[in-house]
């Protein structure tokens, strides 16, 4: 049952490549034509060699020999030309297919939701875009080229050989099925063994990585010697696999050498008899040798192609696995276009489960336009989830969210997000210039706007201290900035959009209290009309909010303004006491 379904799906994987190829039909067609021409010329060459050698048997002139030599050169010239065009068409198409497939993959990832990225680690998604994509390309390019080439070459050779002598043809080709078979099997084993040794190598890497990052623990437990032994075990296992790989590889090369030699031997023996009986000429024998040598590589390639196909199909399946995942958050194509939101948000009995674990339970909440809602609560109480529902990064499992009185799904997704400034908990900046990062969400920002946003979020002075100021490039090869500076840049990125709704998800945690105070003050003054949703651990951040909710296990445990919550003497009051104590301890 599973057998049949998997073989069906294998065919489906192959079929899924066809649309990509169909796009380049004319080029592919030309490619096949050139394969045909190349091989046509290639099998003519031995005929000339035969004639040249035979002519030596009878009395001949230097001039006649020169003519043969020149025609051989002419043939080689045309073969070269055709070969050039063959590669320039078929291999080029495979690169185009790779290009298209990579773009499609990227575009598809762009439609995936936050949950998808939780379930698929970056490393896994990257592996599909690199290793698997490569395997598919190898199938489309060299795979198709060599397959067609070998087939055509075999037919051509067969025709020429048969025209000379059928018995010798039979014997000459005797070793090739064995060769294709041996190459296919050994290559398969090499691939498997290589994969296994890569896995073992990864184990060595992981072990070394864990050991080095945990070196303190190793020393604390005096585990140095045992760690060496553990490493030795992995090291040995890896070397053993590499050695069995070496055996197969050595066998493959030795086999190819032996089988091609055996081909020559057979032709020499059988052909020798035929020449001696006068059935064929000495030139025919020479032609057979040449045909044989020219067929060896295509035959080896055929064995290789069999493997390319298997790996390519497996990899295509892995890529399709991702491409076939439907986007969870569908942008409503008839979504209502909104020019400016008032920023009124309402949650009606909203629940949300992540992998069937409830995170938010039956939340009902109303945030009036222009007011500030603050959310506090322990780690894992559902604060970020609640915030992520507003820009539709997540889809509620049940219940309804209304923006300006309209169900959130009826709005255009792009327009909704355009009206929201979101500063996520984990600051993510791109390795571009600071100015580009701040202007990330708006089309064309004037330098004044960028600076204004920088000033508003209190990062302007820091930026002026960087070597290239606003043009300083961040990340990998650029400058590394502090967590607080990153957070403030992320705030600039959100407020430059002048959003109707501003969400600060623990966005000031790495900023000192004084700077935080300044930022909040300015935000309040400059942007009175917006609706704010602020998540924070710090009471000082949220003290002035119009409404504060305390989340506990996905439910609203307490609600009210600062003073009423203190009077309540519950979780919030407790949290407040603790922070006061902590502050007084700092001052000691």
């Amino acid at each position, binding site marked *: 049952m599973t057998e049949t379904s998997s073989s069906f799906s294998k065919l489906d994987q192959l079929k899924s490549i066809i649309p990509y190829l169909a796009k380049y039909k004319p080029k592919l067609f030309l490619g096949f034509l050139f394969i045909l021409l190349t091989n046509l010329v290639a099998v003519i*060459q031995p005929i000339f*060699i035969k004639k040249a*050698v035979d002519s030596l048997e009878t009395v001949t002139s*230097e001039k006649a*020999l020169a003519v*043969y030599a020149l025609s*051989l050169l002419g043939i*080689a010239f045309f073969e*070269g*030309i055709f070969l050039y065009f063959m590669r*320039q068409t078929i*291999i080029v198409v495979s690169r185009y297919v790779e*290009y298209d497939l*990579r*773009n499609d993959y*990227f*575009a598809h990832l*762009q439609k*995936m939701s936050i949950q998808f*990225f939780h379930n698929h680690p*970056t490393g896994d998604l*990257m592996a599909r*875009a690199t290793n698997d994509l490569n395997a598919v390309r190898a199938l489309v390019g060299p795979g198709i080229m060599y397959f067609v080439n070998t087939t055509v070459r075999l037919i051509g050779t067969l025709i020429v050989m048969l025209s000379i002598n059928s018995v010798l043809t039979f014997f000459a080709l005797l070793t090739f099925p064995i060769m294709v078979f041996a190459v296919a099997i050994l290559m398969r084993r090499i691939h498997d063994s290589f994969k296994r040794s890569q896995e073992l190598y990864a184990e*060595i890497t992981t072990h*070394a990585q864990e*050991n*080095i990052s945990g*070196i303190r623990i*190793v*020393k*604390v437990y*005096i585990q140095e010697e045992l*760690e060496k032994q*553990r490493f030795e075990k992995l090291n*040995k296992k890896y*070397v053993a696999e*590499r*050695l069995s790989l070496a055996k197969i*590889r*050595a066998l493959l090369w030795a086999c190819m*050498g032996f089988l091609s*030699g*055996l081909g*020559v*031997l057979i032709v020499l*023996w059988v052909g*020798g008899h035929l020449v*001696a009986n006068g059935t064929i000429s*000495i030139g025919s024998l020479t032609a057979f*040798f*040449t045909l044989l*040598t020219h067929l060896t590589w295509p035959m080896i390639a055929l064995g290789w192609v069999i493997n390319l196909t298997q790996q390519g199909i497996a990899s295509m399946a892995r890529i399709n696995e991702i491409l076939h995942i439907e986007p969870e958050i569908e942008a409503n194509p008839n979504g209502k276009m909104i020019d400016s939101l008032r920023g009124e948000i309402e949650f009606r009995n909203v629940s949300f489960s992540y992998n069937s674990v409830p995170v938010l339970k039956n939340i009902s909440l109303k945030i009036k336009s222009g007011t500030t809602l603050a959310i506090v609560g322990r780690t894992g109480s559902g604060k970020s989830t609640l915030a992520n529902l507003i*820009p539709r990064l997540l889809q509620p499992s049940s219940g309804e969210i209304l923006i300006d009185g309209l169900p959130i799904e009826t709005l255009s997704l*792009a327009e909704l997000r355009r009206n929201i400034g*979101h500063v996520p908990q984990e600051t*993510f900046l791109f*390795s571009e210039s600071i100015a580009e990062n701040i202007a990330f969400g708006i089309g064309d920002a004037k330098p004044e706007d960028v600076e204004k946003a920088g000033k508003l979020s209190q990062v302007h002075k820091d930026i002026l201290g960087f070597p290239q100021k606003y043009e300083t490039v961040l990340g990998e090869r650029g400058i590394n900035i502090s967590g607080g500076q990153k957070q403030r840049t992320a705030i600039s990125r959100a407020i430059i959009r002048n959003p109707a709704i501003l969400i600060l998800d623990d966005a000031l945690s790495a900023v000192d209290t004084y700077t935080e105070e300044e930022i909040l003050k300015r935000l309040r003054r400059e942007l009175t009309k917006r609706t704010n949703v602020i998540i924070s651990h710090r009471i000082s951040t949220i003290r002035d909010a119009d409404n504060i909710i305390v989340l506990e296990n996905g439910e609203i445990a307490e609600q009210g303004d600062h003073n009423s919550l203190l009077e309540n003497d519950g979780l919030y009051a*407790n949290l407040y006491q603790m922070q006061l104590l902590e502050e007084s*301890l700092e001052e*000691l």
Partner: protein
Amino acid sequence: MSEHQEENAVKSYDHILMKRLILYTRPYITQWISAIAVLFIASLLQLSIPKFTQVAIDDYIRTGDLAGLTPIISLFFLVLTGLFVTQYVQMYIMDWIGQKIMFDLRRAVFGHIQHLPLKFFNKNPVGKLMTRVTSDIESLNELFTSGLVAIFGDVITLVGIVIIMFLLNWKLALLTMFILPALFFVSIIFKIKVRNAFRLVRSRIAKINAYLQENISGMVVSQLFNREEKNFKKFDDLNHDHLSAFLKTIFYFAIFFPLTGFISAMTTAIIIWYGGVQIMTGALTFGGIVAFLQYVFMFYRPIRDLSEKYNILQSAMAASERVFHLLDEPVEEENEQTTNVDPQHARGKIEFKNVWFAYSDENWILKDINLKINPGENVAIVGATGSGKTTLINLLGRFYNIQRGDISLDGENIKNYSLHDLRSQMSIVLQDVFLFAGTIAENISLGNSKINDDQIREAAANVNASDFINVLPQSFDTELNERGSTLSVGQRQLLAFARALAHDPAILILDEATSSIDTETEQLIQIALNKLMTNRTSIIIAHRLSTIKNVDKIIVLHHGEVREVGSHQELLKLEGLYYKLYQLQFANQDKLENAA
């Protein structure tokens, strides 16, 4: 002048590197010699093959002597079989030697890393050290497998072919040699062009992948800020740059293959034309021509390969320099005068006298610490994050050396013990319990052969760990996976206690877990902890009220200084730092515990 000297210095340095590398090959000298011997035979056999064709055609086929053909064909078959065996053996031995040397190097580097001081790891990022153990060593592999010996093989083949061709017909040989420089030239140009083109391809694919990786990590941000289209456009640009770089390499390949094909056709044409002339004059036979064609064919590969070898040598040199540099890093300081101390039966008296410590320069983490802990005493250290609690513990095991003052164990300066003896006096249980890959039993005994199976089971039973261990599929023989992620936090804690108890150390050092554990396990842990602490010098970084109430002495650390010392009640009465800390950290627990 100085430039010249510098060049010399680099060269001799290379020489030293090579010498050190060769040192690693020495254990396998027999294998080296046999590999070279087999390679020599294989090359000779390879060279004899065209000769068979020649002899068979000239002496038997053309003379019609079919009876004589069978022996020569049989000999031919033997040669092929011999070639099969020698090629196989030679390739395998080469790989074998390469893998063994890699194995030794990997072991040496990993082993060396184990004994480097913690100071070294603070300065060197994990990633850099990883590269030494992995890819740097791997890139040496090529030097041994396809570098040194392969060059030898190539030279034998080339020289052999030239000699045979000249013997067959020196005029024709000379004429075909004229073509070779062209082939060599084309190959080198191609290599350079393709190398540069591939460099471009690699840097562009790296850009794509970096961009892709960044976008996957920051996809949510892109979506929030409506950047999908813009980012797609940028990705498409990068993708297209990569495509065009690749099309260039395709172009080079598309030129190179037909060109070499044409050059080889030129040799064929020369052989047919001039060889034909030689046949007419009787200076060459039919078989000679066929053999000539085959020899020329055999000539191509080594010539194309030789230019590659230089690269292999170069990158191997660079990699070995980095590897040896790491191996030259000094290991943890050991003291030579350790003989007069018997650490086997430490009583566990600890004293810190005016201890100052800084990880770097004068950023003092601990300032003028004075402490006295008597044998069997239970001490708790409390203090806010960053007050220096963990550092204090680190100094006791000499994971770092102090700048000023003295630390002594049983009245003897800890510098006078060997590191192994000193550290084996203490069991350290850290918050994040570290489990090694291995069975539960191995994780308790930690490979200490003095701890037998019964002791392991007894220790586990004593700390109430047996209950959960016995439920596991293979109980004590259950393999723990990476970092023991199958066990709960509480279970790992209990396992760590069993480990400490089994080793029966003079000193117990414990960093209590801050994370919440269910009440039932919590109780088990408390009971086990009390057992562990009785009659043993114990130093605990305490996070639980119940632990704090049970100790003899509490030390309050604040900003690297000892601020208060005394019992729980005494310190509460003081209404100082401890009083505040207590309210901050433990008051809630107290409420809960009283309620329960």
